[in-house]
Every structure is written in C-alpha cells, then in structure tokens.
C-alpha cells in the first residue's frame, strides 16, 4: 500500500529544494554574467558554458544513478529503487535536452559549426537516446514488476555501453583527425571562471535532487491512484 502522506511530504521537500536551487541558479548567473570575466577568445558566448557543462554533468550523473539503481534493484528487488531510477531517468532526459540544445548554440559562434562528432558530445547524444529507449520501454510494459525488471536490464546495459561509445568515437577521431578546435574548457581557465563553473555544477546537482524527488513523489501518487482504482473495481 502506498503511503500518500509520505509521498506528499517528499514532494514538498523536493519543491523546497528546487526553489532553493533556483535561487542558487539565479545567483550563479548574476555572478556569471556580472562578476565573471569575459573569455578572451570566445567572447560573451562562452558564458553558455555555465549552462551547458552543468547540464551535461547532471545528465551524466542522472544516467549513472539510473544505471546503478537498476543494478541494485536486480539484486534486492526493492521497487523503490526502480521508482527512483525512473524518476532519475526522466529528469536526466530533461537535462540532456538542455545540454544538446545549448551545445550547438554555444558551438556555432565559437567553432563555426552547429555540431561536431567529438567523443564527449557524441556520448551525451547517446545518453539522450538511451534515456528515450529506457522510458519508451517502461511505457510499453503494463505490469509494474515486469516493467521494473525490464527497465533494470536496459539501465545496466546502457551504463556499460557508454564508455564503449566514448572509446569508439575517440578512436574514430584519432584515426581521422578533425580540424583542430578550440578546446571548450581548457585547463588554463582563470580561477574566477572555475569557481563560477563549480558553483553552477553544484546548483545543478541540487536542482537534480529537487526535480527527482518531485518526480518520484509524483510517480508514487500515480501508483496510489491506480491502486485505489483497482480496489474499487475489484
């Protein structure tokens, strides 16, 4: 039986955390736009880095968490693990979309091209596609236990696959060298920018937690409603 009161409490905590993260986000962007120097070569467009990189980080983290929880679910068969994995996947998908849209927007003025098949970008594209596959499979299965089992299988395999994708593209590029690009986040970034970037990443992480909690709670409430409907019909 699903505890609706606890689900609602989780949702409220999630909302609070999200609001805090939003405030943090606003502060970070004030800092990024007003108090962080403009990058010499890339100009103001470089500031998208403070959205793109943390979004990529959040998407990657969400992906890893979904994969890890999938493995734990198969070992422990606790449905809560599956619910969090699913919530994480949906939030991760949203962050992937942000990452995939800000990437080209940033890339065009700087690299002169909307897209480039480098190892990092391609891996993140595949993470996006794997999230979609994961969620599509979930959507196609009705029984919750079967759905949890199937999701975990694909979640684990997807996690193991991504390093291979990365390697594939890396080998491909060393085989067929592309014209040299300006490396987006060169190690010689001045301290001020690094701090802004790290703050951004921290805020996005908190945002991820807040969103995932709310999505998890929403999932719980939906299940509770299905349960009630099933009992009413029985």
């Amino acid at each position, binding site marked *: 039986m699903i505890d609706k009161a606890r689900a609602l409490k989780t949702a409220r905590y999630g909302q609070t955390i999200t609001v805090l993260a939003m405030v943090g986000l606003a502060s970070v962007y004030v800092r990024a736009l007003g108090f962080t120097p403009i990058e010499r070569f890339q100009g103001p467009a470089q500031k998208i880095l403070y959205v793109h990189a943390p979004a990529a980080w959040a998407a990657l983290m969400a992906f890893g968490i979904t994969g890890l929880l999938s493995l734990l679910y*198969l070992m422990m068969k606790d449905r809560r693990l599956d619910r969090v994995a699913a919530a994480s996947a949906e939030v991760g998908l949203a962050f992937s979309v942000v990452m995939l849209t800000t990437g080209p927007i940033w890339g065009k003025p700087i690299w002169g091209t909307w897209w480039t098949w480098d190892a990092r970008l391609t891996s993140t594209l*595949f993470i996006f*596609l*794997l999230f*979609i*596959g994961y969620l*599509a*499979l979930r959507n*196609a*299965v009705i*029984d919750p*236990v*079967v759905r949890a*089992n*199937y999701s*975990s*299988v*694909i979640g*684990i*395999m*997807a996690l*193991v*696959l991504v390093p*291979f*994708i990365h*390697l*594939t593209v890396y*080998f*491909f590029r060393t*085989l067929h060298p592309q014209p040299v690009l300006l490396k987006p986040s060169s190690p010689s970034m001045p301290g001020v920018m690094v701090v802004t970037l790290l703050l951004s990443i921290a805020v996005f992480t908190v945002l991820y937690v807040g969103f995932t909690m709310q999505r998890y709670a929403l999932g719980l409430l939906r299940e509770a409603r299905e349960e009630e409907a099933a009992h009413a019909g029985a």
Partner: protein
Amino acid sequence: MSGSGLWRASLAIAAKDIAIEWRTKTAFVSSMVFAVLVLAVLYFARDPTAVASIDIAPGALWVTFTFAAMVGLNRAFLLERENHALDGLLLTPAPPTAIFLGKVLANLAFVGAVEAVSLPLFTLFYDVPVWRQLPQLVLVVVMATLAFVPVGTLLSSMVVRTRFSESMLPVLLLPFLVPPLVGAVQLTSRLLAGRPLSDLPEWVRLLAVFDVVFFILPFLLFEATLDE
C-alpha cells in the same frame, strides 16, 4: 544441471529453432530481401562520379548486415509466445541460461546464414576484392556478429511482450550496434584495401573486449526478463 547438461539442452533448443525456421523460412526470406534492397539502395545513394563504390562498400556491408539481422532477431522469442511454448521450456529442468544460449546459438546461425548469402552478393554488387583477405574478413564478421547477437536476443526477449515490438527492438538495439559496427567498418575498409588487421590494433581490441562484455552481460541479465 551440469555443464554438459546445459550445453546439451542449449543445442536441443537451438536445433529445434533452426528446424522450425528451416521449415517455414519466413524470417530468413524477409531478412534476405531486406539485405538485397539495402545493398542496392546504398549503392545508388551517392554521386557515382564523386564517390567510388569501394569507398562506401564497408559501410554499406555493415549497415546491411546489422539491419537485416534486426529483421530476424524477434523471431527467436516470438516463436515461444505462440501456444505459450516458453512455459513448456520453463517446466523442464533446462535452466534459463540454456534457453538463452539456445536462442543465441539459433540467432547466430540465422544471422550467419544471412551474412553468408549477402557477402557474395555484396562482392558482386560493389565489385570489391573480398577474396584477397577472406579469412581475416570472416574473422571480423564473426567478431562483430558475436558483438550484437546476444544483446539483440536479450532485448527481443523483452520486446516481444510489448505492444510495438517491431519498432521497439531497433530503438533499443541501435545504440548497442554502434561500437561493433564502426569497428567492423574500419577493419573491413582496411582489409579491402589490402592492409592487414594489425594496422588497426585498437579496433581489434575494442571489438574483442566488447564481444566479451556483451556476450557475458546478457547471459547474466536474461533470468531477470523471465521473472514474473
């Protein structure tokens, strides 16, 4: 069940699958027709004055192999759904691993047959010197096929129970095809140019490691797809 018992059960299941496919041939014919069409379309999908057929040949071969294989992968578990035959298998002492291995072997035979028939056609259509390094080419084909058939078999075991199984399998499987496909294309390209495999050791290694990981992992995960 002992090792040899597991092996015997798997062979029995694979033999049964092959016997049934041999009798009906529907999946094989569909895959072959698909393969011929893809080879033809890819041959014409270029400017022949700008792009030589040998340049696109490796890519065309591997797209054909993988897509034609996908057409037939669902066959393995669809067969067990009619009459709930899978329940019959689960009632026997044959362990789930044997069922999965049997299905993988049958799918390998199926995909292997499609590849064996497609390769001469490919040579014919694209006019490429396949014979010079045939053993090495066959090795690459074997390695790349081993890379995606177990994953495809595992995914099809799940997907056949869903509503849109025909379109779900490619959506889920395609990302897993990318490393072996890219690797196979690079190696095939070198072989067709008369170069040895040792030219590209990192790709051979990538393919080998991918084979091992994505052969073992589906076996470990299969039982989870049976649990109800």
